[in-house]
């Protein structure tokens, strides 16, 4: 048997991994969480194909059926398939989670960059405004906003609910992004842009904003988890989406409170879905921070 060996002198050039492979290699837990998120997204987007039953169809013959081959996660008090409702619920959670986190994080980032750029009294006013918003616990602020606004459904999404959840996110992102933007503001290229006579908006959007993308992305990802949790909390309290919409928080309230002793699967599986989603987004956010922030690379 011929053995072919590499010449000793031939140096193996290090293979350059792409950013995705690099992330998977350096952040395996983050990669696992990303897989969970992708599964959720797939389930949410293709829920009609993935779910074995219609999530809204009542079947009084199957009221409170225990988990079985027919109903993997059992049925609720209306005989609706819980597995199908969880799959459809992922759409509600992700749409509201992504939308609220995107709006809150983007507005917060803009406010933070503007605050850092202008400084002085403008910075003072913006930061006091942020302080006021930060004084409220997230759930309390969301409750106030959602209670004050009427439900307005656009394309099946309650935009006021999204707005209510995005408001508490805004000041938290603004504070973090401002800190990053303060260090960018003193960079020579910003001074150069000023000297060249560029407008404030151009300096903010073209020169400063791109350099605070890393903290923005990290906050955006982390707050998706918060937004999903808030949506579930508000629905649980009867202020979020309404029955018969499939939503995880809603599945924990209403009849679940009446029948959880007799049918514990009514609260067990939606609870697991919420926990898993929040855990996955938090873990992914942490991993992204570790991956993007040079201070964590050492």
């Amino acid at each position, binding site marked *: 048997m011929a053995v072919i060996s590499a010449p000793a002198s031939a140096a193996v050039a290090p293979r350059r991994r792409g950013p995705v492979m690099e992330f998977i290699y350096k952040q395996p837990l983050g990669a696992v969480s990303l897989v969970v998120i992708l599964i959720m997204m797939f389930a949410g987007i293709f829920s009609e194909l993935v779910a074995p039953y219609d999530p*809204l*169809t*009542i079947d*009084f013959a199957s*009221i409170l059926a225990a988990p079985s081959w027919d109903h993997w996660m059992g049925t609720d*008090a*209306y*005989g609706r398939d819980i597995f199908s409702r969880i799959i459809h619920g992922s759409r509600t959670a992700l749409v509201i989670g992504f939308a609220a986190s995107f709006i809150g994080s983007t507005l917060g980032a803009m406010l933070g960059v503007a605050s850092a750029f202008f400084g002085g009294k403008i910075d003072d006013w913006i930061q006091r405004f942020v302080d006021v918003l930060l004084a409220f616990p997230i759930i309390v602020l969301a409750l106030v906003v959602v209670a004050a606004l009427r*439900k307005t*459904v656009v394309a099946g999404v309650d935009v006021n609910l999204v707005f209510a959840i995005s408001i508490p996110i805004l000041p938290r992102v603004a504070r973090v992004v401002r800190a990053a933007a303060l260090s960018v503001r003193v960079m020579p290229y910003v001074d150069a842009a000023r000297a060249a006579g560029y407008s404030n908006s151009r300096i903010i959007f073209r020169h400063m904003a791109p350099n605070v993308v890393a903290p923005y992305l990290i906050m955006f990802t982390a707050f998706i988890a918060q937004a999903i949790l808030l949506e579930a909390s508000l629905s649980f309290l*009867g202020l979020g989406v*309404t*029955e*018969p*919409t499939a939503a995880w928080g809603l599945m924990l309230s*209403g*009849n679940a*409170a*009446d*029948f959880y*002793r*007799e049918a514990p699967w009514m609260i067990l599986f939606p609870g697991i879905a919420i926990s898993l989603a929040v855990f996955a987004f938090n873990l992914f956010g942490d991993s992204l921070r570790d991956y993007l922030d040079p201070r964590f690379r050492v």
Partner: protein
Amino acid sequence: MKAPILGLVGALAFTFGGVFSEAHAQQPKRGGILQFAISAEAPHYDPHASDTYATLHFSSPFYSTLLTYDLSKFPAIKGDLAKSWTVSPDKLTYTFVLNEGVKFHDGTTLTSEDIKATYDRLRNPPQGVVSNRRATFADIDTIETPNPTTVVFKLKAVNSSMLDHFASPWNTVYSAKDLAADPAGPRTKINGTGPFTFVEHVKGSHVAGKKNDNYFKKGLPYLDGYRGVFTLQAAAMLNAIQGGQVLGEFRGISPAERDRLVSAMGDKLRIEESSWTLNLLVSFNTEKPPFNDVKVRRALLLAIDRWGGSQGLSRISTLRAVGGVVRPGAPLATPEAELAKLPGFGKDIKAARAEARKLLKEAGQENLKFVLWNRNLAMPYTPAGIFLVDQWRQIGVEVEHKQSDTAPYIAAMQSGNFDVAIDFSNLFNDDPTLSLTKFLSHKKNPLNMSRANDDEVDKLYDQQLREGDVEKRKALIRALEKRVFEQGYQQPLLWWHRIVPTHKVVMGWKMSPSHNLGADLAEVWLNQ
């Protein structure tokens, strides 16, 4: 697992006759503050303008009515402010003699002028005042007050339901002086002659009253005061009962909630059950396209499987019996076999839904979408809403289920700012006139939320009201029912089943088929 629970429920379930004997066997004790749950907050304080129990459970302890029901012998009627009454042989004159020395809470003396002012407001409210009882008292021609303790009602025509109307808990008597100063005052201010005086209303929290020392029924009330705690969430209400923060809820709870309380509290709890003079209605806004088209309304009613829904919903909610315009089981109710022939009550749901699809196609509404307005009371409004959305999806109709607080829900219906709503018919007895009033033309009765005006219905209503022969009256009621269901303005979804939990220390409270009765708490006492 279920058998012992149901057995326990059975052991603890009392007929209300049984409860009377228990309560009356003991000498009432005086004192104590009764804390009880109210599952909805009153939109205002004025029962004249209300049709929700939330107002009665809030306001009844502060007020008196001319007559009232004797719940020990329901549906017998007894005097409240009236000491006695007579009806003329031609049944056109009702003369009431009032109790003497009745004082309003502000110290003024009640006279027949107060009764007149109250009933004038009920039958002909001034500008800016809402009376939900206009149609009820449309037969009153004149009200005379020959002396301070006598009031005479003269009718335009015979009305076989008039005494029941005088005993209605909604007709709380107000002070003529107060009404002259501000006709809309009772919406926000309380000055009655009832067993309790108003202490406070903390919005979102509670209403409190204290014993009226000048109450005209000597020896009553037994309690020093009461506090009605608003528990909008069912779980909060159940926890409060279980923990003893409140000693009962007098509207009604669901079978699952009953089982939970019985299992947790055992013999500390009393459960009383009764059929209920209450139903949910599906009401279409007939002024708004496409619901002004009878084909669309009829299609939507045909799609509802009431018989199947009754079996399923009765396991998880207070909804139970399938019935027409009169409570199932009541003497003048439509029998099941006859009911099944009416639109929306057929037992072949596949055929009914096929017809529904055909009607929608004919009306050009194959892709119908609308908003279903509902009240955000978990029981039984939420199950009813979920059920209806499911039923209508099965004929391809897309429905947005909108649940809101009682005040905006009622405001939307009263203003006609809705597509379809889950309305309720909140009765206090089985008199058909009372239940049929809901179906009178909107111009005659603003409580007809469908806003339909139908002279044929009004004619049949009048005819049954004047008819003395029971069989002929029954036929007229059937004809009215058929007309209303064929036109599909509004239709009962299901009738309710009442289950009331109280701690066993609560005595003297009397169960009845209506949660609107017995809310004045005058004879309630605490055995502790």
